[in-house]
């Protein structure tokens, strides 16, 4: 789970990474106390690419700051409106660098990524240097140095980067972060100041470490609190939901099969309306009722496709849960079913008792859902 820039910078500050002395701006505040102008007013949202979407505005005085704040609070960035802004001093920069620590499968653990030219166009440049570490205790300064030497010729910057990278790796492990990214990490134009400053910060927490990290638990609670009522009820069952822009609501089991079904709907000319993986939740009415309530309450969803292929999840239980859920459901949106997996042989008999049909293949079910969605337009 990604946290906000100002939260990420607070974390970086606690481990000795220099960050600008910024000011938080909340809505409704007419005259925020900014120490010095100009400032960069930055929308605090949990998605990337903010800079390219106009989420950072320069303000030279209090009047401009007020106008920038008004504009940013009214703008959606990837569907998210900022609830807080960060005003950082506008600094003269000599060079923007890129430094991040993340986890990856090929490394069997942590990797350090570094590019001597960072900033918003990092993806357009050559790929960053990649130092694969494995577990955090395998970090070696001399190994990273050997990786950096070909791309970073300024040894003073190189040595500072090595020292920062080690701290980030240790922090990622100790604080359960999937990613800590500093882009840009800035060498200021001020020649007397050799320090590297984290002008931006992105931290992605490992949500499953919530039981041993109070900050992560607080983020999880915040996520639940921000969710609207119907979504919250589904999330409380452990369901994983991503809203998409189509009209076929998908209730599915397993991340891979959910995406497989989304792709198939698309292949038949339909548009998936969501990714909703209910497999981490209970295979009972307690689990299925909030999933249906969420999609029934979404005016964009015209048809619901239930597609579950279960191993540990037993299909006779799912079929009975669906029967009970459908019995109390008020919405008239059509539902298409496709269950397969453990004990699927018992499904048709259960479905017959409430007049439902279980499609034998995902193909026929997806086609039916696409057809029904077109009819309800």
């Amino acid at each position: 789970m990604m946290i906000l820039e100002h939260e990420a910078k607070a974390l970086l500050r606690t481990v000795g990474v220099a960050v600008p002395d910024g000011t938080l701006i909340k809505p409704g505040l007419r005259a925020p106390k900014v120490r010095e102008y100009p400032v960069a007013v930055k929308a605090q949202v949990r998605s990337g690419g903010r800079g390219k979407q106009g989420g950072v505005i320069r303000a030279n005085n209090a009047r401009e700051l007020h106008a920038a704040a008004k504009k940013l609070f009214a703008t959606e960035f990837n569907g998210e409106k900022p609830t807080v802004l960060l005003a950082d001093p506008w600094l003269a920069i000599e060079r923007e660098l890129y430094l991040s620590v993340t986890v990856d499968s090929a490394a069997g653990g942590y990797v350090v990524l570094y590019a001597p030219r960072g900033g918003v166009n990092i993806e357009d440049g050559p790929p960053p240097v990649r130092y694969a570490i494995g577990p955090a205790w395998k970090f070696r300064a001399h190994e990273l140095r050997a990786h950096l030497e070909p791309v970073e010729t300024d040894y003073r910057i190189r040595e500072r980067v090595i020292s920062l990278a080690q701290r980030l790796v240790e922090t990622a492990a100790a604080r359960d972060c999937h990613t800590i990214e500093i882009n840009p990490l800035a060498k200021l134009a001020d020649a007397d100041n050799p320090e590297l400053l984290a002008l931006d910060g992105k931290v992605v927490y490992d949500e499953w470490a919530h039981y041993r990290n109070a900050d992560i638990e607080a983020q999880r609670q915040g996520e639940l609190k921000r969710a609207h009522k119907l979504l919250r009820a589904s999330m409380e069952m452990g369901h994983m939901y991503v809203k998409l822009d189509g009209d076929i609501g998908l209730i599915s089991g397993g991340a891979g099969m959910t995406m497989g079904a989304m792709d198939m709907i698309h292949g038949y000319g339909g548009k998936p309306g969501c990714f909703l993986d209910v497999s981490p939740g209970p295979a009972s009415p307690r689990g299925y009722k909030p999933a249906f309530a969420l999609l029934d309450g979404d005016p964009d969803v015209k048809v619901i496709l239930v597609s579950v292929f279960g191993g540990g999840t037993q299909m006779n239980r799912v079929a009975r849960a669906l029967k009970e859920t459908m019995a109390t459901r008020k919405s008239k949106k059509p539902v298409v079913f496709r269950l397969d997996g453990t004990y699927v042989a018992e499904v048709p008999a259960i479905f017959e008792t409430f007049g439902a049909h279980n499609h034998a293949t995902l193909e026929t079910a997806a086609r039916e859902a696409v057809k029904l969605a077109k009819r309800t337009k």
Partner: protein
Amino acid sequence: MSILLDQSNRVLVMGATGNYGKFFMKDAGSYGTTIVAGVSPGRGGTDVDGVPVFESAKAAVVATRADTAMVFVPPVLVRAAAIEAIEAGCKLAVITADEMPVRDMIEIRAAALANGARTTGPNSPGLISPGKAKMGFMPSFCFMRGPMGVISRSGSLSYEGCKRLTVAGIGQTTVVGIGGDPVKGMTAGEALALFHDDPETKAVLYLGEIGGVEEIAVAEYARSQGAKPVAALIVGKTAPPGKKMGHAAALVGSKADGHAAKTKMLRTSGVYVSNGLPDLVKQVQVALAAADRT
């Protein structure tokens, strides 16, 4: 042959007296898996359906010559249980748990490497060598014995994919669930190396997703000299960027790990990439036909 698992593996179950452990011992035992011991601290000296339960993995290994561990403890305890089994001498530890912190898996992987052991998962269905043995909850009827090695990042997709193969009369040597997490006990590249050395495996099916770096190793293998034919399906064509699609690793963070870039990289490396699930069996047939020509 098969890889990693057959009837000769002597399996101990970490967390034998829980619901999952009990169900697994009954289900996998009847499938053919040789289950010799359970481990549940505080319950040593008891038994589950006649299988003896021990206080520690070490005690179980000494008494029963167990060499393979099935880890069925809650996510909070997986690191402790898996490392205990590995350090007690198990050469393979299969982890199915989801909701596990990635740092814990990093430590388990390091422990396995240090002890010359292997591990698979987490966030996976486990593994099955059809007709021989299974380590996990996969629905057995989806699988049959045959020439395809299968590697999957997703449990449900491996059931769906293998059922399609089985219905088409194409069996599998072993199906390895490498799981949906960003750090894996066994990577796709490592599983491919094992399938490469298995004489019974004629070709490999790789079931992948958007996000992560796994597919790079698949492409590298397919390009290598003497590689067995590889078919693949990558799901998530319709997934929006920047959103986690259930699995922690299934997130398009940059163009390189999106669907288009991955399928293109695999295709140019000679992988038979399926155009969605309906096309899967055909691509596997093409891969098998290519294997017959060599």
